């Protein structure tokens, strides 16, 4: 049973400082938790020996002031870890061991964290269910017959089940916030450029972002503090002076102006989710915040934009998996063309191939200007519209998802349908804004319902301020009982 890892970072830290426990105890517990929760299928690769060795080393050191010291963390399997298999949940990289650490991994290690394993996900982060994983779908700790969401489903499942207190995910079109919503977690997609992408296996370069999962707001901000910073190896990384993302936590929200996009309250969203949203609006008004409905242009087009931009970029980003230098390749290729065709035919799953094909089509010849260039224009205008709204509002809120987590065996025959679930989260990627999910209640069938908080660029601290206020007000029970 979980003992320490279900506590908050501050609580664990105190125990470490008091020498009540050591990092070795934490790693041991995490490993036990993984064993107990094997059926969740949250992990693809465990880092058992290495994690224990590192915990032993850390146990000999001063605990220091960092709340992250000695803390086990799970890392999504599309973030490169030197010497530790990184598969992107694909047959293509089933045996791929990176030769370098991603920027964020170096940051975790420098902070004294211990990587416990690599989490399950949709293949190459392409999906909203984690069902496209070559290693089978992870399950939702709240109800194991249901999805944990995607693409960072394994990271969400590992934190929601208290296997670890923290995990890293990546978010190209909602892949942190949607699983966080489905599993009742705090999940932050930071501003584009806030966290270096170096070492994140690229899906859609102009949308990809790495961010933290946690069970409470404060811990999330603490982990983000460590992930950020300028990285000269990522030209899109922002060169801002460091800030403390916890600094506004606990500050009064009186007078805060909060907008709620009309589209986010339309009938695309399940009634019981809209009910929870109304409840939140009421709480905010009572606390002296100003809540009003707003309009942001093109929100309804977000999914279409995503299909064009993300798939176009993906078709190019995944071209490197050709069987020549690393990863899976067919053994009996008769020519270079034969090597490419059959390696990619057998190495990629159906969804990945579908997206590569759509993306290639979109960029092909005339189509590039018909689709891609046009999508970029609309995207720009959407971003501008967000900026205009943020001139008058501090934050925007809405539901994170249109429904709660659906059943694992629920099969959609129309692949384009699955994207519609992400209609509320994708606009944030399109505009490069920061957005977070926090739980705002449970549905009638006891599944978590998530609130989406969107900030202006680089205003993560303000998101955490509102998130922590609501966390306290809603007094949400983070503990999934699991539904057998």
């Amino acid at each position, binding site marked *: 049973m979980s003992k320490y890892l279900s506590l908050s970072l501050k609580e664990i830290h105190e125990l470490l400082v008091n020498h009540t426990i050591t990092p070795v105890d934490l790693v041991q517990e995490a490993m036990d938790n993984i064993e107990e929760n094997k059926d969740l299928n949250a992990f693809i690769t465990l880092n058992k020996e290495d994690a224990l060795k590192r915990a032993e080393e850390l146990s000999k050191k001063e605990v220091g002031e960092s709340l992250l010291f000695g803390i086990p963390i799970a890392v999504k399997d*599309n*973030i*490169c870890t030197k010497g530790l298999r*990184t598969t*992107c949940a694909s047959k293509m*990289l089933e045996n*791929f061991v*990176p*030769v*370098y650490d*991603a920027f964020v991994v170096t940051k975790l290690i420098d902070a004294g964290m211990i990587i416990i394993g690599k989490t399950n996900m949709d293949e190459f982060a392409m999906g909203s269910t984690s069902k496209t994983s070559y290693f089978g779908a992870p399950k939702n700790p709240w109800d194991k017959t249901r999805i944990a969401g995607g693409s960072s489903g394994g990271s969400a499942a590992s934190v929601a089940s208290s296997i670890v207190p923290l995990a890293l995910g990546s978010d190209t079109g909602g892949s942190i916030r949607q699983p966080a919503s489905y599993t009742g977690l705090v999940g932050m997609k930071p501003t584009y450029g806030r966290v270096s*992408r*170096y*070492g*994140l*296996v*690229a899906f*859609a*370069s*102009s949308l990809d972002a790495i961010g933290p999962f946690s069970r409470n707001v404060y811990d999330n901000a603490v982990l983000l503090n460590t992930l950020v910073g300028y990285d*000269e*190896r*990522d*030209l*899109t990384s922002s060169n801002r002076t460091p800030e403390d993302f916890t600094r506004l936590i606990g500050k009064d929200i009186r007078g805060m102006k909060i907008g709620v996009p009309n589209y986010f309250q339309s009938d695309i969203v399940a009634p019981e989710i809209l009910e929870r949203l109304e409840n939140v609006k009421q709480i905010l008004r009572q606390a002296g915040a100003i809540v009003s409905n707003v309009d942001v242009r093109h929100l309804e087009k977000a999914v279409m934009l995503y299909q064009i931009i993300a798939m*176009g*970029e993906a*078709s*190019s980003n*995944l*071209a*490197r*998996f*050709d069987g*020549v*230098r*690393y990863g899976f390749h067919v053994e009996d290729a008769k020519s*270079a*063309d034969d090597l*490419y065709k059959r390696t990619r035919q057998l190495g990629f799953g159906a969804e990945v191939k579908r997206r590569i094909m759509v993306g*290639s089509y979109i*960029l*092909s*010849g005339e189509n*590039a200007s018909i689709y*891609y260039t046009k999508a970029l224009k609309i995207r720009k205008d959407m971003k501008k519209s967000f900026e205009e709204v943020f001139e008058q509002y501090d934050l925007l809120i809405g539901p994170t998802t249109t429904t709660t987590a659906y059943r694992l065996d629920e099969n959609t025959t129309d692949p384009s349908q699955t994207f519609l679930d992400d209609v509320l989260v994708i606009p944030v990627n399109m505009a490069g804004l920061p957005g977070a999910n926090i739980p705002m209640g449970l549905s009638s069938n006891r599944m978590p319902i998530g609130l989406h908080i969107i900030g202006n660029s680089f205003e993560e601290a303000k998101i955490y301020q509102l998130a922590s206020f609501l966390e306290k007000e809603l007094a949400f029970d983070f503990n999934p009982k699991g539904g057998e």
Partner: protein
Amino acid sequence: MDYQTTVGIEIHCELKTQSKMFSPSLNSYTDIANTNIHEIDFAYPGVLPTINKKGVELALKAAMLFHCEINKTMFFDRKNYFYPDLPKGYQITQSRTPIGINGYIEIETKEGPKKIRIHDIHIEEDTAKSIHHHEKTLLDFNRCGVPLIEIVSEADIHTREEAILYVEKLREILFYADISDCKIEEGSMRCDVNVSVSNTETLGVRTETKNVGSITHVGDVVEVEAKRQIEILETGNKIYEETRRFDEAKQETVLMRRKETGNDYRYFPDGDIPPLVLTDEFIENVRKTLPVLADDRRKVYREHGISEGNIEKIIANKKISDYLLELGNIDLKIASNLLLGDIQAYLNKENKNLEDTKFTKEKLITVVSLLSTGKMNHKNFKDMLENLFTTDESPEKLLEKLSASNITDEALVSMIQKILGENPESVKDYQEGRDRALKFLMGQVMKETKGCVDARRANEILQQELKNTRS
């Protein structure tokens, strides 16, 4: 209407940078295979490109020297295709916003000067090198990511002569600006020659002959490819868009592959590289580093009366040319004669570089001024040559020594007689047997001759003269 040949040339040049265009590994692909590589060159999952500032600087220099309009805001694009030497599955290039557009190069044809327009010049990265070996293909990634500029001419070239002059001029400019070492044979400069023929107003279908191995062969390709195409058309057949190569031995072009219609590179902006904005300050700083080009140098040399033969020798040796530029306003004809003649010969003999000897620029300037004012002749220079290279003594000092050593016996005798006349005390001391006096008198002789006289000869004459004064 006669057949008119129309030629456009695309030239890839590797830039002389320390590191690669988008990765930190060394730009030195002649090293042992696969030693100058990085996770970025290998297109490992998760890697991202960075931009080599020096590469941008050199490309900008080239764009300025070819009189291009500069794109101050540049995007980088991806050109997508599959090939084993292209690890990312795309090449980073500039398709929408090349660094320079609408430039030209002026060539000197027999009919007079002609401008060959340059469509654009853009930055891109080289591919890995495929080495075919026993039916296998080996890949050397040292070259992968090496910075390139591609210079695309307009179809303004019509003859063998123009093609050769264009490539020669372009090469000379890039070489003089230290942008590329332009070694065609080693592949640091590669020429693709597009040729079409037509006997109507509309251009014919063109073929592209890739990777032509020398400047002369560029001319050959223009000739033989035009001839081949005319023959095909004359026999009522059709020209296809093709990629061909040049067989040097057979002096003919050979089909490599027929271009499929709609070759689809799926160009789109590279999201990993934000738009690069060249500030006016950056551009001006690069402008300040523009070199004096060969043609401008030729003008200066002609003004100094240097022979045409020597001018081309100097232009061909950029080191000497640069050196001459740094000498300032002196007689460059004399300077170039020395540099190309005795100095070069000495250096060749000793297998040394000028900068490794003691023959400094200051010394050369002095020598030239001594020669040009007639204070010294060429024989003097030859006599002091060794000392100029090996000692710290100034040319003036060496010249004095030389003239002193040239002193005749008669002159020495009369000088010594004069010294003895001026020092009767010492003469007396000597005669009274004090050896000290001889040393003193000898010192006077050396002082008078500035130490440049053979001491034994002087000593003999001194003793002889002392004897003479006694009798």
